[in-house]
């Protein structure tokens, strides 16, 4: 401690220790603040959810080895206020709309909950956290592990989820409560036999077997 270098070294060593405790404290404080702030009670209102189904036979839409994939796209109205997610330690919020449905695992035969992201956005300031959208289109075309998606008379529920990325601390995830229980039955769309008819003939279309 006799020289300047040693004194400043000791000082910055203490600062590092203090910053370690500070970061843990701020991280826990932020989580506590979010929990007490009623973040899990934020409601999202969905309306006019309209699914559109389409069969694809390109690899970009999940069709592999000639197995056609039924893709779903959505149009929806959404009204949600995510301003409550922003506090002093929020860097940005990733908000994403998912559809949740039960699917049967091909390997074990068990029924699993599956979620697919159809739309997402990054909110960087609380001024833009009020999301009001009319007739918004889903960003992503989604498909199931099975070839048929909507043709199995599948019921999906739509919900908005969020992920807070803090400046310091822990990532936190959550789901908004749906103000109106938004369940949509995907429409049946028979496979068109105009394109790649040879491939389709070898399979049994699920529409014909179920009906």
């Amino acid at each position, binding site marked *: 401690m*006799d020289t300047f270098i040693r004194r400043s070294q000791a000082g910055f060593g203490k600062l590092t220790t203090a910053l370690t405790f500070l970061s843990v404290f701020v991280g826990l404080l932020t989580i506590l603040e979010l929990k007490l702030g009623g973040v899990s009670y934020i409601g999202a209102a969905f309306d006019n959810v309209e699914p559109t189904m389409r069969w694809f036979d390109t690899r970009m839409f999940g069709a592999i080895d000639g197995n056609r994939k039924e893709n779903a796209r959505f149009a929806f109205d959404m009204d949600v206020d995510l301003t409550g997610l922003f506090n002093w330690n929020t860097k940005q919020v990733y908000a994403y709309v998912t559809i949740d449905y039960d699917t049967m695992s091909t390997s074990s035969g068990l029924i699993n909950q599956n979620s697919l992201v159809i739309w997402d956005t990054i909110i960087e300031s609380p001024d833009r956290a009020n999301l009001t959208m009319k007739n918004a289109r889903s960003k992503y075309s989604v498909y199931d592990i099975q070839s048929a998606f909507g043709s199995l008379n599948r019921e999906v529920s739509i919900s908005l989820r969020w992920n807070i990325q803090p400046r310091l601390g822990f990532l936190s995830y959550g789901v908004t409560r749906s103000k109106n229980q938004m369940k949509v039955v995907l429409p049946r769309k028979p496979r068109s036999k105009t394109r790649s008819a040879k491939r389709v003939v070898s399979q049994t279309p699920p529409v014909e077997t179920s009906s």
Partner: protein
Amino acid sequence: MDELSDLVQRYTAGLIDFRGQELSEKIISKIVYSGVGLACVVGYVTQDFMIMVYGLGVVAVLILIFSLPLPIYKKNPPTWLEYTPITSSKVIIDHGDKKTTSASAKKTATKTD
């Protein structure tokens, strides 16, 4: 040249006295712990994360400032004993101490036996 570099090192090292070393450690630890706490509280109250970060930057600057050889660290210069050059050769070459210790060790050994 060697003496000159020694002189330069001595004046740039920022040497302070022993009381000053104790004082600097106390002051710096108080600055660090209270400064970090204060920065966190102010940042939380103003709900601005960057204020906390700037506060931590101020703490870092204060550490550097209070590590300098300030005059408050130099108030108690140590009083050294006067330098008396040793002239007699008897004192410098003294193997008597070694002999006595070995002899006393031998004595204790015989006693235990």
